């Protein structure tokens, strides 16, 4: 009996150890993402109260701001419904809650799919489950690790807003509201991971749910009579928690109940299914389609097809919405002085349809630059997975391969930019805004020079430090963009703000096209890309 008890306790100690190991690994795997998100949460929570005090010091400033923006559909679309724009807390709750709740949703989805599906796709989950740990423990350990990461985000947002001068209790609650969607979307990601046959499909399913949640929130906040829709989207619950503006903590029951329900449902499915396949099975056989197989570039286009369509359609949809609501912007009642202050936010005057579209296209510029980085990340993935060895062992030159990938990235970036321009034009025309198609195509094309520059820089990072390339590329774009946004806002000297390429953009259609800036960006991008090809031809291929 004694031996049995001893083995029993040794066994439970062993599985406890295994559980801790799984938790640690899950945390470690996602440490870069978790830390980046934590920085973002802290920065946003810190900057909003500071910038509000800085930009609208007096009650009259705040009143006119509230009057112009409280009901402005265009702004509400981005940031959600504002309950009180006259206090620092109310403004911060609106801006912080509106942006961070969306980021929190994305974080929850990524974390869940990474821990529950990507591990399985790579075959590592089999290795873990072949050890002394059961599925139930493995699942609990993964959820525990994700919960720890979310706690970290909460703390980051809390610390940021306390540092920004908001009350401690209110900050804690605001941070809670901001991260609440993360918990719900961990549940969504967990269920999607059980349904989908692989990581990619799980992310697509979860992404669709986030898009739907966002769309519901937008409709609820912008259409009269649709306010009740806020109660069926996790992003709406974050608003209904109403930090600093008459808090309703009872609403927290909704995200808690839904996330517990989803996580439990996912656990049930997980315990009953085969490792390595989802509830929805993938189609494994197909008749051969032999188009687009004559060159590595064609085949890359084939492989990226789905992702290109997603980029095109989401950017296009967003552009159309921007066009439609540009009409609802009105300059009535806005003082010149306030408009000038707002222009400093890096967006120019946003009080005319063209001004608003110029402001919005700054975000499309960002998106297209990020797309360029994603294409270099895809090229690196091809090398990391060693499929590039298969290609280059054939009579395929490195210059031809990388050149083709760059051309493909550029072509797709152009397609996305022009789609944004054309659809924004169509949206604006449908509301009777007078803006010419040529102008809006110009607004779209204006996204390309920075994209060319960042594509070149990303390619150079890829040629020089392949393993870190994607991080460097995305990081450069993010830093350059935030530099522009906050540099202007904090009133940094012009030469310092001018360091970022985004400062050299004419925001078409609000401003005129900056030909010199664009030419410099394109020329730099091309030179750097040529350097990248030169370097890439001279290095060893490097696996993952």
């Amino acid at each position, binding site marked *: 009996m004694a031996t049995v008890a001893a083995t029993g306790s040794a066994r439970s100690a062993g599985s406890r150890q295994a559980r801790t190991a799984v938790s640690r690994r899950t945390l470690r795997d996602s440490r870069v993402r978790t830390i980046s998100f934590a920085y973002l949460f802290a920065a946003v929570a810190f900057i909003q109260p500071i910038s509000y005090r800085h930009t609208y010091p007096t009650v009259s400033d705040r009143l006119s701001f509230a009057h112009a923006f409280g009901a402005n559909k265009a702004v509400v679309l981005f940031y959600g419904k504002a309950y009180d724009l006259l206090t620092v807390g109310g403004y911060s709750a609106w801006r912080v809650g509106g942006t961070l709740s969306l980021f929190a949703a994305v974080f929850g989805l990524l974390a869940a799919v990474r821990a529950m599906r990507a591990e399985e796709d790579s075959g590592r989950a089999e290795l873990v489950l072949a050890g002394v740990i059961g599925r139930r423990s493995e699942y609990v350990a993964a959820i525990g690790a994700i919960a720890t990461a979310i706690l970290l985000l909460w703390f980051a947002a809390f610390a940021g807003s306390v540092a920004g001068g908001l009350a401690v209790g209110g900050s804690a609650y605001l941070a809670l509201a901001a991260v609440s969607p993360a918990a719900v979307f961990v549940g969504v990601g967990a269920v999607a991971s059980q349904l989908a046959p*692989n990581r990619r499909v799980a992310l697509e399913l979860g992404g669709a749910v986030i898009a739907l949640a966002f769309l519901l929130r937008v409709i609820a906040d912008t259409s009269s009579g649709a306010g009740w829709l806020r109660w069926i989207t996790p992003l709406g619950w974050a608003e209904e928690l109403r930090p600093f503006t008459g808090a309703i903590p009872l609403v927290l029951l909704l995200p808690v109940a839904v996330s517990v329900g989803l996580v439990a449902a996912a656990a049930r499915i997980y315990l009953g299914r085969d490792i390595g396949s989802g509830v929805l099975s*993938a*189609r*494994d*056989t*197909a*008749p*051969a*389609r*032999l188009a687009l*197989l*004559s*060159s*590595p570039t064609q*085949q890359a286009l084939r*492989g990226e097809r789905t992702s290109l369509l997603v980029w095109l359609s989401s950017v296009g949809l967003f552009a159309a919405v921007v066009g439609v609501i540009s009409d609802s912007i009105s300059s009535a009642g806005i003082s010149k002085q306030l408009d000038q202050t707002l222009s400093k936010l890096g967006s120019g005057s946003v009080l005319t349809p063209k001004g608003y579209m110029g402001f919005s296209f700054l975000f499309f510029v960002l998106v297209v630059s990020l797309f360029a980085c994603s294409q270099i990340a895809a090229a690196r993935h091809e090398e990391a*997975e*060693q*499929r590039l*060895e*298969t*290609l*280059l*062992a*054939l*009579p*395929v*030159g*490195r210059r*031809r391969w990388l050149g083709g990938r760059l051309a493909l990235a550029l072509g797709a970036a152009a397609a996305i930019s022009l789609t944004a321009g054309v659809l924004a034009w169509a949206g604006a025309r449908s509301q009777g805004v007078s803006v010419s198609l040529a102008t809006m195509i110009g607004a779209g094309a204006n996204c390309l020079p920075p994209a060319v520059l960042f594509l070149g820089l990303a390619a150079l990072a890829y040629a020089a430090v392949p393993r870190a390339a994607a991080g460097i590329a995305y990081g450069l774009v993010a830093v350059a963009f935030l530099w522009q946004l906050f540099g202007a806002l904090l009133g940094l000297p012009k030469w310092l703000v001018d360091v970022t390429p985004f400062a050299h953009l004419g925001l078409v259609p609000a401003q005129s096209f900056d030909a010199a800036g664009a030419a410099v960006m394109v020329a730099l991008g091309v030179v750097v890309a040529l350097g990248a090809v030169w370097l890439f031809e*001279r*290095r*060893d*291929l490097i696996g993952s």
Partner: protein
Amino acid sequence: MAAIRTEGLCKRYGDTLALDSLGLEVAEGEVYGYLGPNGAGKTTTIRLLLGLHRPSGGRAELFGVDCWRDPVESHRRVAYVAGEPFLWPSLTGEETLEFLARLHGGTDRTYRDLLVDRFALETSKKVRALSKGNRQKVQLIAALATRADLLLLDEPTSGLDPLMEMAFRASIVEAKERGQSVFLSSHILSEVEAVCDRVGILRAGRLVDEGTLEQLRHLSAQTVEVTFAGPVPDLGPLPGVTVAPMGPAGLRLEVSGSIAPVIAALADTPVASLFSREPSLEEIFLHHYDDGDSRGNG
């Protein structure tokens, strides 16, 4: 012109010398076995031959074309099979074969169909749904069907079952009959023994032995097993022979060089049975690795 020629080829990764002045020459029409344990530098050699990695010193040529300076030209007459099948998960087997054929600049379609039958490959399945062995078959078929003048094969049969291993050997024999050269990196000795004309043995980045199987055997110890009708006699010291007891009434002799002194020493003893055999490739191979750091006498 040699299919493969390297001179003083070196590759250094950081502090490790992965390949140490390798001098190889594989003639056209020759099947060359490249043997070595894991980490000996076999894959490094192939990556240098394909111009995927840059030599730290020396040079490599395929059919007289420099591998690093002109990789595209040097690949025109070459087909490669990697040890791990790195293919595109969303393409089907048939799409993959077609893609690789087009990039190679043509293939023998009739032969490809024959190979698909021989290796029993289901070509309508997507690569992501294929087992490792089946993905390996896709690569092998694509390479063999090109009828390239030189096949560079890096442990091509890892993951194949014994039936497919036989199909592979048959295909190599066919390639040889057509005058193609084959560079077969492997640690499956029976495979190398069955198909290769010449063998090179690599250890820790150095070529420690090279030659035809007969030459290697000649240089290595031969095993003679003797049992006696009476008590086991003391043969005394014999040059180049190590003696070990074998059972109650036998001896096992490892003879390097001529066997004549052994026969002479045994002439007056009550020999019941005598069994002599040439060393297998496995014994030659192990002989090189058991020696620790010494390079052996081969």
